[in-house]
């Protein structure tokens, strides 16, 4: 089966969906290729509610054809090759991982783009914050971000947020009141969830399940732009996995081979190809496309493809406050501390982003279920149990510190050719470790959390001993001006492959501490123009 189009987009997450929507609007013929299936929202909500561990993937069916990694089974999908398991996960389905993202839509700060020149660490981006700023504004429009225009989060803005802010939680205000005389500035988080109805989507009604699923689609997910692209003529191929990129000797992509879940195979011939398959799947496909002309894989003359894998390793801490703060209600997180993301001593100490969860202890302990069991197994019952349960769960708080992980060439995605998936792709093999910079950041975060706990007033607190995965998979196809040290240029065009573009967090040279989705979106919108321009070359 041969298919022809102007542009092939591989992956239907936020990056791919935005590119597809944007180029389809300009009249290009577009194919969106997605390895996974469409998702039934109502069935997924039921699956989440029936799951014993409410992990990010718990709402979604595991597909035999194109499986996804799972938080509670870190060795099941990835071939773990390093000293510690890599445990950030993603979804392979229409809409990608935006199904279970939190919805925080935060910009990087200007210094994040200049880590090398300002702090002597990592690398600089080939673009500045000012270069990306107009695209952040467009991304906020597309994702209908709700934010507070009066609040300076350290990322200068040239346009207002399209939607008024989401209400901060009661719990946020308890934090804000407790910390207002300190250096910790508690701010409402810009979020891609509706603060008022838009189109056929309702405003957020606080379903308390952003991760793994919003039951009413008040939280943005990429199915919105997939549908928009389709309405503009794009063709969506589901359960269709790209498994080899054919290149001419001059580097131009000739065709992309695919296989469908029913075993049918074919090729797509497109004038431009955009790989938008996330920080694991993008290098996986390109590495699996090694040929005589490109023995290290497509777009890998620099040997940087798959390297510099980064996350935002998290220090997770939780506590029992003295006064009720009424958690387990509302969006997953509505406030954070942003002023530690822009520290002036980042050469020595990592920036930190503190996120306050509204979901009590569900992440660290599996509460409220675990609390109910503990109290009941301790012998309480009847009214005494009811009272204790209410009295304890109403005081559950948690804080997560996202740390900056510097790019290390040794942290990388390769292929485990001993395990071949039904798609024909080898399983991703991961080597992952934390360096002293990140380890120190995690330690610093513990101390700062304890300081915050002292200020809000707690009876007890706890820390996770090990870093938690953030699900922010970055760096494995870094952008840069020098083809010898990077994979794509500043327009996200692959060096040596004129009609191949890579979008998504894989292209981040460094990761800062902002949740990456808004930056992914801004870069994708920027790249869409370059992709369209490439059609006339």
């Amino acid at each position, binding site marked *: 089966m041969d298919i022809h189009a102007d542009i092939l987009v591989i992956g239907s997450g936020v990056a791919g969906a935005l590119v597809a929507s944007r180029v389809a609007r300009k009249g290009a013929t577009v194919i969106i290729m997605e390895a996974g299936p469409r998702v039934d929202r109502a069935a997924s909500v039921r699956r989440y509610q029936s799951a014993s561990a409410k992990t990010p993937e718990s709402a979604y069916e595991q597909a035999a054809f194109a499986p996804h990694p799972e938080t509670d089974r870190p060795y099941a999908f990835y071939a773990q090759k390093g000293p510690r398991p890599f445990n950030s996960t993603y979804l392979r389905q229409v809409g990608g991982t935006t199904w279970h993202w939190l919805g925080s839509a935060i910009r990087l700060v200007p210094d994040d783009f200049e880590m090398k020149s300002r702090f002597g660490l990592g690398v600089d981006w080939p673009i500045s914050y000012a270069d990306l700023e107009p695209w952040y504004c467009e991304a906020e429009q597309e994702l209908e971000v709700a934010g507070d225009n009066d609040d300076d989060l350290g990322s200068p803005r040239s346009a207002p947020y399209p939607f008024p802010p989401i*209400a*901060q939680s009661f719990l946020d*205000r308890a934090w804000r009141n407790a910390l207002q005389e300190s250096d910790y500035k508690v701010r409402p988080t810009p979020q891609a969830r509706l603060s008022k109805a838009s189109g056929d989507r309702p405003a957020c009604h606080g379903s308390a399940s952003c991760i793994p699923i919003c039951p009413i689609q008040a939280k943005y997910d990429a199915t919105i732009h997939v549908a928009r692209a389709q309405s503009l003529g794009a063709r969506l191929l589901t359960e269709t996995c790209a498994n080899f990129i054919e290149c001419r000797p001059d580097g131009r992509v000739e065709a992309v081979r695919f296989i469908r879940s029913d075993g049918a195979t074919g090729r797509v011939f497109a004038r431009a190809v955009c790989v938008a398959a996330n920080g694991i799947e993008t290098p996986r496909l390109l590495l699996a496309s090694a040929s005589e002309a490109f023995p290290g894989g497509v777009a890998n003359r620099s040997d940087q493809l798959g390297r510099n894998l980064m996350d935002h390793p998290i220090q997770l801490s939780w506590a029992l406050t003295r006064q009720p703060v009424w958690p*387990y209600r509302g969006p997953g997180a509505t406030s954070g501390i942003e002023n530690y993301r822009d520290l002036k001593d980042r050469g020595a100490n990592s920036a930190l982003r503190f996120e306050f969860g509204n979901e009590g202890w569900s992440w660290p302990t599996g509460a409220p279920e675990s609390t109910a069991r503990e109290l009941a197994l301790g012998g309480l019952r009847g009214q005494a149990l009811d009272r204790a349960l209410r009295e304890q769960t109403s005081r559950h708080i948690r804080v997560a510190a996202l740390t900056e992980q510097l790019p290390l060439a040794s942290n990388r995605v390769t292929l485990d050719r001993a395990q071949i998936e039904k798609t024909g792709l080898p399983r991703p093999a991961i080597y992952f470790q934390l360096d002293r910079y990140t380890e120190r950041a995690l330690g610093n975060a513990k101390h700062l959390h304890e300081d915050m706990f002292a200020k809000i007033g707690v009876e007890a607190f706890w820390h996770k001993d090990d870093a938690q995965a953030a699900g922010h998979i970055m760096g494995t196809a870094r952008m840069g001006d020098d083809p010898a040290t990077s994979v794509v240029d500043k327009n996200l065009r692959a060096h040596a492959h004129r009609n191949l573009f890579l979008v998504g967090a894989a292209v981040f040279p460094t990761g800062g501490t902002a949740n990456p989705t808004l930056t992914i979106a801004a870069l994708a919108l920027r790249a869409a123009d370059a992709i369209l321009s490439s059609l006339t070359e």
Partner: protein
Amino acid sequence: MHMRAKDRDVSRRKLLIGCALGALTPCIADRAGLAETSDLADFLRLSAELTGRTRLHVDSARIYLQSLGLDRGALNGIDPLHDKDSEGLARRIVADWYSGQTVDSGRMICVDYTGALMWEAMGFARPGGIPGEAASWALAPTKE
């Protein structure tokens, strides 16, 4: 007055458990089914005593009972409120109903998340995945 109210509660409880037991009748088709139904009825009565709740789902009860791995008839005659030997069993039954979870073959499983008794006890939160009132999370719950 207090006694009369209590009597009324007990009568209502009997009625509701009776309704639940009525749902079991299709199981009473043979001797094995009869024994199973009798165990389930014992378990439901015991659960109602222990939790003070009468609206208990039969389907969940069946799973909680099965997870205990008891012999047939083991629950017959147990008085969990006064029998110290069955205290561990009683605690486990309460834990299962409140959390909506149980341990099956050494693994925690979810039986009834939205129907777990903890939500009613907490009083200020709903199960995840169920929309509430917009921006209500900004305020203290009305039922403080």
